């Protein structure tokens, strides 16, 4: 599920929709979390879908680390690619803003790290100063390590910010994320989130 301070906006026929912040979202905020309404499809399940669905699979699902395709039930499926993304961490099971987002800023991911198979590539028009032009899975390792650096800086902030999505985040996943990013594991602590729920790290 997407952070509640977001809105879907239609951009143009080529890009379609995008996800935009409706309020300031500081770096370290959890902007998306995988939840139980998202649908996960195996290769076999996808092959059983009628042919008309194949284009929708390419457009709206992304490839998980487990090789399945995930269809977000809400606007999460409409997050666009940017070569200078504002969010990262999909494979951790939740995404974090890796820079401060002003109201109106677009929530973006680097698709090279998530939705491309070896055969898939696309040309990017993100207009960022670091736009790579052609996006392929070949760059994935390099991009992933650059994003990991940014996540390393952003994730510790997550523990200090109001997090409306805490109730959907598995605390074990948070600890795992710290480990995967080689960050010192946070001490056992209880976070009072804005939504009055608590996240107790194991």
């Amino acid at each position, binding site marked *: 599920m997407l952070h509640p301070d977001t809105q879907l*906006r239609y951009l143009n026929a080529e890009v379609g929709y995008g996800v935009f912040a409706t309020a300031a979202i500081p770096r370290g905020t959890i902007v998306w979390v995988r939840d139980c309404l998202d649908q996960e499809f195996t290769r076999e399940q996808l092959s059983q879908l009628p042919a008309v669905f194949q284009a929708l699979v390419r457009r709206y699902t992304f490839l998980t680390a487990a090789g399945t395709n995930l269809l977000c039930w809400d606007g999460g499926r409409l997050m666009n690619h940017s070569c200078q993304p504002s969010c990262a961490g999909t494979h951790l099971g939740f995404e974090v803003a890796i820079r401060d987002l002003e109201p109106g800023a677009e929530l973006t991911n680097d698709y090279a790290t998530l939705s491309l198979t070896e055969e898939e590539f696309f040309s990017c028009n993100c207009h960022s100063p670091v736009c790579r032009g052609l996006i392929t899975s070949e760059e994935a390792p390099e991009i992933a390590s650059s994003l990991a650096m940014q996540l390393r800086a952003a994730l510790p902030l997550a523990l200090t910010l109001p997090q409306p999505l805490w109730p959907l985040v598995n605390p074990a996943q948070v600890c795992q994320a710290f480990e995967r990013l080689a960050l010192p594991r946070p001490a056992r602590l209880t976070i009072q989130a804005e939504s009055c729920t608590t996240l107790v790290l194991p």
Partner: protein
Amino acid sequence: MLHPATQLRYINDAIGYGVFTTAFIPRGTFVWVLDAWDRILSPPAVAALPRLLRQQVEKYAYINAAGDYVLCWDFGCYMNHSCEPTSLGLGESIEVAIRDIEPGEELTCEYATLNLTTAFACGCHKQTCRKLIGAADLDRFGEQWDQTVAQLLPTISQVEQPLAPFIKANERDRAVLDGIFKRAAVALPSARDYQASKAAKPARQSLTAGRLWRLD
């Protein structure tokens, strides 16, 4: 799934999003169909959801004849109610345009046919606005709505139906659709047959989940 000539727009904080047409859609066109990706959630499954998600399901899903929640995977869940809607239900898996719809118009449906659990105050400002919309409206207006849909039957097989390959219909609906496209006489289901409180248990078992109905 919504008709491809539609676009999501944010209306305002009170209403939220709405679905608008991007091209002319003639009367008799299917503007929404139930498809393989729409989620059907039993009431216990919804009750077991984390509160944040349960609120979303209660806001964006509707309740079908079996009493289950239907959460559209696409923008179908953002279709608003109007007391003079652009479409009405045909069976359980189709919303059909009851008049010609111009480009830029909002697609609307009749929430009273969707097993409302609580009545809501309507702000559609139409001449025939009922002000308070509740499930009981179906008893008062069901016959009128059935007649409106029945009058569409000849046009359904004459207009383009881009959503036909996506329909996930139960046996009853599939038989009705087959009849419509073969221009045979069909016993049209009444909107009142889909009241969750009146649905017979066998109706639920006859649902052929995952099976798709195809044109030709």
